[in-house]
C-alpha cells in the first residue's frame, strides 16, 4: 500500500466561476450592464431598485432578478412597474450562485434590456464569494444599522465597485457617525464611489442614477 500526495491546486469555486463567466459573456453580448446588489436584510435593496427604475424610465430598459430565501414579495413589487423580473427562491440558501442566475437569464427578454439588477439574498457575508456574471458589485449600507458595518464586515466593503448609504433621512434621529462611516469606507475601498441617498425622500438619488446611466453605455464613445 503506498501513500502519496497529489497536487491539485484548484479554486474551490471554479465551477461557479466558469458559469459566471458564461453569464458575463452572454450579458456583454447583449450590451447589458449587470449589477450585483448586495446588502443586509432591510437595507433597501428593492426600494433602491424601484426608485432607479422609475428615474431611468425612458432612458434605459431595466430587468431584474430577485433572490430571496422564500416568497415573491419583491418580484411582485418590481412587476407592478412593468419591468421584466424573475424570482429565484434559494430555499434557505444564503446567497445566489451563477447557475441560478444562468437559469433566470433564460426567462428574461435580454434583447430588450440595457441594465440588469441582480438583487442578492440579504446578507453581508456569503454573497461576496460567488460571482454571478455581473460587471458591477455594489453594497447598500443604511443608517439604522450603524456606521460600524464596514469595519465589522470588511470582506464585502473592500471588494465592491460602488457603495450606497441609504436612509439618510433618518440621520437626525439616530447616532450615526457619518464621518466615521466615510473614513472606514475610504480605508477599505479608496476607489469606489459612495452615494448617500434616501429612497424615502429621493435625496441623493439623481447623482446615483446619473452615475449608473453613464456606466450603462460602455460601448458609447462620445466626445
Amino acid at each position, binding site marked *: *500500500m*503506498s*501513500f*502519496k*500526495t*497529489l*497536487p*491539485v*491546486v*484548484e*479554486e*474551490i*469555486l*471554479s*465551477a*461557479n466561476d466558469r458559469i459566471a463567466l458564461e453569464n458575463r459573456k452572454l450579458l456583454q453580448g447583449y450590451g447589458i450592464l449587470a449589477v450585483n446588489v448586495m446588502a443586509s436584510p432591510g437595507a433597501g435593496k428593492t426600494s433602491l431598485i424601484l426608485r432607479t427604475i422609475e428615474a431611468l424610465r425612458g432612458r434605459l430598459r431595466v430587468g431584474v432578478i430577485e433572490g430571496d430565501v422564500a416568497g415573491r414579495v419583491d418580484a411582485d413589487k418590481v412587476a407592478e412597474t412593468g419591468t421584466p423580473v424573475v424570482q429565484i427562491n*434559494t*430555499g*434557505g*440558501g*444564503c*446567497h445566489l*450562485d451563477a447557475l441560478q442566475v444562468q437559469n433566470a437569464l433564460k426567462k428574461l427578454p435580454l434583447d430588450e434590456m440595457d441594465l440588469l439588477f441582480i438583487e442578492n439574498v440579504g446578507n453581508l*457575508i*456569503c454573497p461576496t*464569494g460567488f460571482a454571478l456574471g455581473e460587471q458591477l458589485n455594489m453594497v447598500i449600507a443604511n443608517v439604522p444599522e450603524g456606521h460600524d458595518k464596514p*469595519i*465589522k464586515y*470588511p*470582506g464585502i466593503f*473592500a*471588494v465592491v465597485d460602488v457603495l450606497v448609504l441609504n436612509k439618510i433621512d433618518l440621520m437626525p434621529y439616530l447616532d450615526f457617525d457619518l464621518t466615521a462611516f466615510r*473614513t*472606514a469606507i*475610504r*480605508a*477599505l*475601498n*479608496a476607489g469606489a464611489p459612495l452615494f448617500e441617498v434616501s429612497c424615502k425622500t429621493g435625496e441623493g438619488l439623481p447623482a446615483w442614477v446619473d452615475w449608473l446611466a453613464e456606466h450603462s453605455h460602455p460601448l458609447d464613445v462620445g466626445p
Partner: protein
Amino acid sequence: MAPMHELAVTQSILDIALRHAERAKAQRILAINLVIGELTGFVDDSIQFYFDFLSRDTLAQGARLVFERIPPRARCHTCRTEYIPPDSRLWTCPECDALGGEVIAGREFSVASIEIE
C-alpha cells in the same frame, strides 16, 4: 438546495478531490489539504461536518480536511508597505499612518493537494 453557505462549498471541495483521485486511480482519499484565506469567512468545523456527511460511500469517506489559514495582508496605497490589517479596526499603515490598503492576501480558497493511496 443549500441550507447553508458551507454546504455548497463543501460539495465543490468533494467534487474536486474525487475528480483528481479518480483520474489518478486512487483507492482512497486520506486527506484533503485546503488553503483558505481568513477574509473568506468560511468556518472549518462546519466544512468538516458537511464533508463527513457528503463523503459517505465515496473514495473520500473518512478523509481528514487539513486547513491552512492565510491571514489577511494589505499593501499601503501610499508607501507600499505590506502589513497585517487589524481585526475590527480601521486599516492604517503602521509605517506612514496612511489610511487603507489593497488586499494582497486573505481571499485564497483552493484545494492545494490530496493525499491518496
